[in-house]
């Protein structure tokens, strides 16, 4: 990853981490059970299945210049809650978009070629869930395995590659009933690759994503 790209991303990560830590401290301090000294009821592991859509904002400007500032992503995820506060999760994310090439250097003609881009990710990680009445604070970190393809529609240029990445997120859920929970989270991901072009010597497909979804509890 190039230093020039890394600087603003790192700042956002620190802000997000600090916010998360502050919220966590407040929640723990204000947890009803702890304040009343009441033992919680016995825990039974449960499974959550969720679907969500995300609004992705790429960390690298080169990606945004080709495909626009925000792209829609789809998430499907399963959470296995092993204790009241800890859960494991695994899921799938896909993002498909269309764009147009950028001109490098001084342009001679305003001529752009159409592009298609797709990244499909298998993700897994560890989460922390802190229930507060009908709300729940959720934190998560994990890794991803990503399959990437970029295709030029006018020329036989076609790049397909695989890349590993990492991500972290923070969000909250709201119980709609015994089985349903609506949730939202903000996520930061990094997906570095060794590939690039005249536009971007080393591409990182990470960025920020706001996610909104619905979970069904089993």
């Amino acid at each position, binding site marked *: 990853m190039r230093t020039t790209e890394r600087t603003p991303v790192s700042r956002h990560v620190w802000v997000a981490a600090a916010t998360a830590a502050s919220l966590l401290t407040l929640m723990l301090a204000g947890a009803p059970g702890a304040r009343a000294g009441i033992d919680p009821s016995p825990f039974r592991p449960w499974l959550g299945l969720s679907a969500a859509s995300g609004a992705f904002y790429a960390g690298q400007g080169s990606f945004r210049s080709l495909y626009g500032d925000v792209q829609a992503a789809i998430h499907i995820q399963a959470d296995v809650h092993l204790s009241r506060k800890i859960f494991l999760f695994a899921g799938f994310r896909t993002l498909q978009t269309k764009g147009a090439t950028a001109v*490098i250097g001084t342009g001679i003609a305003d001529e752009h070629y159409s592009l298609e881009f797709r990244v499909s990710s298998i993700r897994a990680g560890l989460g922390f869930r802190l229930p507060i009445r009908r709300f729940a604070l959720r934190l998560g970190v994990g890794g991803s395995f990503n399959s990437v393809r970029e295709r*030029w529609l006018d020329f036989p240029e076609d790049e397909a590659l695989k890349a590993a990445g990492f991500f972290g997120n923070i969000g909250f859920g709201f119980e709609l009933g015994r089985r349903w929970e609506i949730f939202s989270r903000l996520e930061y991901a990094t997906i570095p690759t060794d590939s690039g072009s005249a*536009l971007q010597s080393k591409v990182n497909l990470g960025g920020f994503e706001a996610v909104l979804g619905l979970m069904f509890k089993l």
Partner: protein
Amino acid sequence: MKKAFAVMVIILAAASAAAAPGGDHLIRLAKEDAARIPALLRTQLQGLQELQACWVVRVGDGLAQALTGLGFSFEVLDSNPEGKAYFLVRTASPADAAALAGLGEVRPLDGSTALFWAGATEAREVLPETFAVKRLHLGRRLQVRGRESSVPIPLPAGRMRNERAYADDVIPDLVAQVSKSKLGLNIQDLQDFQTRYASTTNCESAGTYLFDYFQSQGLAVEYQSFAFGGKPYTTRNIVATLPGHSSPEQEVIVCAHYDSTSNQPLTLAPGADDNASGTSAVMETARILAGRSFDFTVRFICFSAEEWGLYGSEDYASKAAAAGVDIVGVLNLDMIAYAPTLPETLDLYVNSTSGWLADRFRTAADRYAPLPVQKIVDASATWSDHSPFWDQGYSALCGIEDSDNPYYHKTTDTFSTLNMDFTTSITRAVVAAAADLAQPTYSVPTPTGLRAQSQVSSSLFDSIKTAYLDWDAVSEPVAGYNVYRTTTSHAGYQKLNSSPLADPSYVDRGLDPGTTYYYVVTAVDGEGRESNFSQEVKDDENN
């Protein structure tokens, strides 16, 4: 990451050190070592001479230490070069090398080429006449490159141009005009000056003779005077010009040196083979082409002071480069008359970037004036007037007999030892090649004003280049235009359009951004006849 950072710090420190004052060194840098030097440092190397396997480079103390510190190996040839006169000397045998050793300092460079100096003394004044020399100019700054890739870039299949009906009409007629007797008379005339040693008045008289000859052919002629040698002496190049019709800014040069030397240079240096023969071929080519019309300008040049170290051609080539003269190719002829038996082979010496010129010469010769030709790619062949053109990045070849002339640089190098049938066949090939390069003006007008610009379009993982071409519409009605492309300058053009283009513009998409492409265009008339190629342009002239 840490390692990369450390290397960068060392390189930056080295780059700073390079700018620091200190003594200079001449070094021999092998090309494979040059290729490994980071570009940031390599651009600071002052290349003085490229040879086949190495460079002669001038470096300051700081840069030399930096290169050593980074683990790059080189050989120091000499230190504190200021005030010394260095020469590249061809040492044909170990005995030659041994003979040099007692006359001054000698450092082997590359194959049969050595660096020689004897303080500030001119090589010609201390070396036996048998040595061919080239002055190494310390002020020259050539860009040091690594070894070039020899892998050709494949082009998609395209249609080669094969309509040459008009050239086939014109060039055989030109070739047929080559006169063996006139070639012989020219050589005899030059020999009759007794000596053409560049520092003598006889050489000046020979120059005047050549000036008058070219003028009598109706060509515009000029002297190009320059100083040479330690005295300094003054001598003159003779430059005759046949202006081009459609693209006069593009020049084809046919040249030879007219000065001579021998073991009695001040009084008797007939130089019949070396190089009245080459000069005669230039004169005869000028006689035949004068009065004909070609798309490109043809210059007929007789250089002086070649035997002193290529001073005349160095002066001409460096001034042409400084003025941005667009030289298509240089045909240099040096010793083309000694052939004990026939058939005899004409050797064509080229460097890697001039290979196309030898191929083009051979093709023209095969088509119009067949003779055995051998192409030899050797950047170390620095011993004649093509070499300063190589130094300036121009394409040039040297045509020279294949046999060793036992009368070389002797008072016995006379007309009676020559094979004029050999000279005549070579001159025919030279006329054919020069006419082919300059392109006889055709009734279908050649497009002019071709311009090319390119831009790179990029996605995340791929980039392509697009070239935008436009040219001036020809003044006469034509059916359209054809566009040709190649990745090797002046060779292997392939047509891009399937039918003639109505407008004088073309966009070539989907190109590799890392490759340089060259373009020419032609006009096509209503009967399907195609004009000559326009001047060639590079796709990235805007970059």
